């Protein structure tokens, strides 16, 4: 996923659904439309089926590109290649650290934009969108020239610094989208009942915005884990998970890459499912 598009994903997921059925014009047109839509949906899944299928492949050479035979070996030894495992661990580390820092910075901006009226808030709004409009290759290049100018050695720190830079805007926009439409008079009610501003923040404001923060954190984490282009420019000789995959394409693609990709997909699905159930429960309660 690229950072540019993520606000669009959030907007689509958060958009209120109005149940509506629109009667189709002619019957045949309607059927044709559904078939085309179904085919497009299927198309989105073709590579995913291939990835899952090839996680059970028994490749003959270095490259897991053509089907040779079924095996469960790859799933039995998902961590067979230490370099791949190390790269994945590093990526999880980078994602966790950068998300934690960007979450604090981004959430503060979101709260200020939604809850406070201040001069220049429009300009801040526009400024936040800018990092999402630059192509990743340009952002990576710009950061690289900065690090060169200041003689910063590329490595773990520069990767984390770069990830925070593209995560802040995204987190601020996600949290802000979630905070719109809340009943903020609850805060006044809390203060009227004698709670201090600090107490109000922890007892009223924070519980209201936590679901938004959690969603932003999860997506920012996924974004960091998946980032290749910007990381490629600022990584030096440090190897993250996507960088390992890229090097593999040039040298040897072990099926363990497919195993770990499938595992990550399943884990995201479970987290997504749990999140949906949790939200539904809260709404029902």
């Amino acid at each position, binding site marked *: 996923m*690229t950072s*540019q*598009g993520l606000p*669009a994903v959030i*907007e*689509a997921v958060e*958009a209120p*659904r109005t149940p*509506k*059925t*629109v009667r*189709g014009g002619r019957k045949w*047109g*309607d059927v044709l439309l559904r078939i*085309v*839509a179904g085919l*497009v949906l299927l198309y*989105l*899944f*073709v*590579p*995913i089926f291939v*990835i899952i299928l090839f996680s059970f492949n028994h490749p003959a050479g270095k490259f*897991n590109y*053509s089907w040779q035979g079924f095996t469960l070996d790859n799933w039995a030894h998902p961590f067979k290649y230490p370099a791949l495992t190390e790269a994945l661990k590093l990526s999880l580390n980078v994602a966790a650290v950068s998300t934690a820092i960007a979450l604090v*910075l*981004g959430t*503060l*901006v979101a709260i*200020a934009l939604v809850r*406070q009226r*201040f001069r220049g*808030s429009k300009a*801040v709004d526009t400024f936040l*969108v800018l990092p*999402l409009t630059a*192509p*990743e*290759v*340009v952002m990576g290049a*710009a950061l*690289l*020239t*900065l690090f060169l*100018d200041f003689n910063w050695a590329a490595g773990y720190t520069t990767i984390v*610094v770069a990830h925070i*830079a593209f995560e802040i805007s995204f987190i601020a926009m996600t949290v802000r989208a979630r905070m719109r439409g809340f009943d903020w008079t609850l805060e006044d009610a809390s203060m009227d009942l004698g709670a201090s501003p600090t107490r109000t923040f922890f007892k009223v404001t924070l519980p209201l915005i936590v679901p938004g923060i959690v969603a932003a954190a999860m997506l920012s984490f*996924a974004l960091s884990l*998946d980032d290749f*282009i910007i990381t*490629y*420019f600022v990584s030096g000789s440090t190897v993250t998970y*996507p960088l390992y*995959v890229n090097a593999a*394409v040039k040298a040897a693609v072990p099926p363990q*890459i497919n195993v770990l*990709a499938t595992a*990550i*997909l399943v884990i995201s*699905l479970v987290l997504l499912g749990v999140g949906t159930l949790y939200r539904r429960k809260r709404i029902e309660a």
Partner: protein
Amino acid sequence: MAGAATSNRQRSKIAPYLMILPALAYLGIFFVVPFFSLARTSLSSSGGSVYLPTLTFSWDFGNYLDAFSHFRDQIIRSFSYALVATLVCLLLAFPLAYVIAFKAGRYKNLILGLVILPFFVTFLIRTIAWKTILADDGWVVSALNAIGLLPSEGRLLSTSWAVIGGLIYNWIIFMILPLYVSLEKIDPRLLEASKDLYSTAPRSFRKVILPLSMPGVLAGSMLVFIPASGDFINADYLGSTQTTMIGNVIQKQFLVVKDYPAAAALSLVLMAIILVGVLLYTRALGTEDLV
């Protein structure tokens, strides 16, 4: 009590600025300043060796001329690939977004979830999967050979179409979702009204749905076009030396050849063309709000 309230109000005057300061400072240092570094590098002349390149700032605008003259093909290719990919995305995404918004009923959430699901697999691995699918000994090539759509020695991999196909696949979700959001907002009564007034289905589509979906078309097109024109993965994995894009050149000049001024100039050219394109496009479609 009154005193406490006043001091609270006074504090809240600077409070928002204190809250936005850390993030703005961070983005200032790691988003704005890097562009100055990039601009400065693009106007420097390089010396030294590949291992120890030295840069001297010299208002060397020649780097820009070189960028245009040396890499004209890649510049043109990037924008034509991105343009074709954006158009195909629009054509493929519209029916799906329309069905999700108007016909899916209670399956709406499920289908939306399915649209997003593939994007939980790393972008690079999805592109590798296309390498497998389009491979010379793969079943797609044999099927196309069998029905005569592809000559027996024809290939899919390493062609412009493979690269454009990869661009389409990797960014189509960002066309589907904004389109869906703008279609979802259309009041179905408008469609019924146009029908009651004896409009035909194609006419209703042209006069009601299409104009109202313009914000989605605009947002989706930019979300596909911008990353697609700067991409180098699809050209690298699915293309050949004949299909390289600007992204490939920038990447290679920066990280392999280490000709920083040329690469920096090319990055800024890419950025400038995209900005001009976005500006013209938003003017043409007559809407100001981008995101």
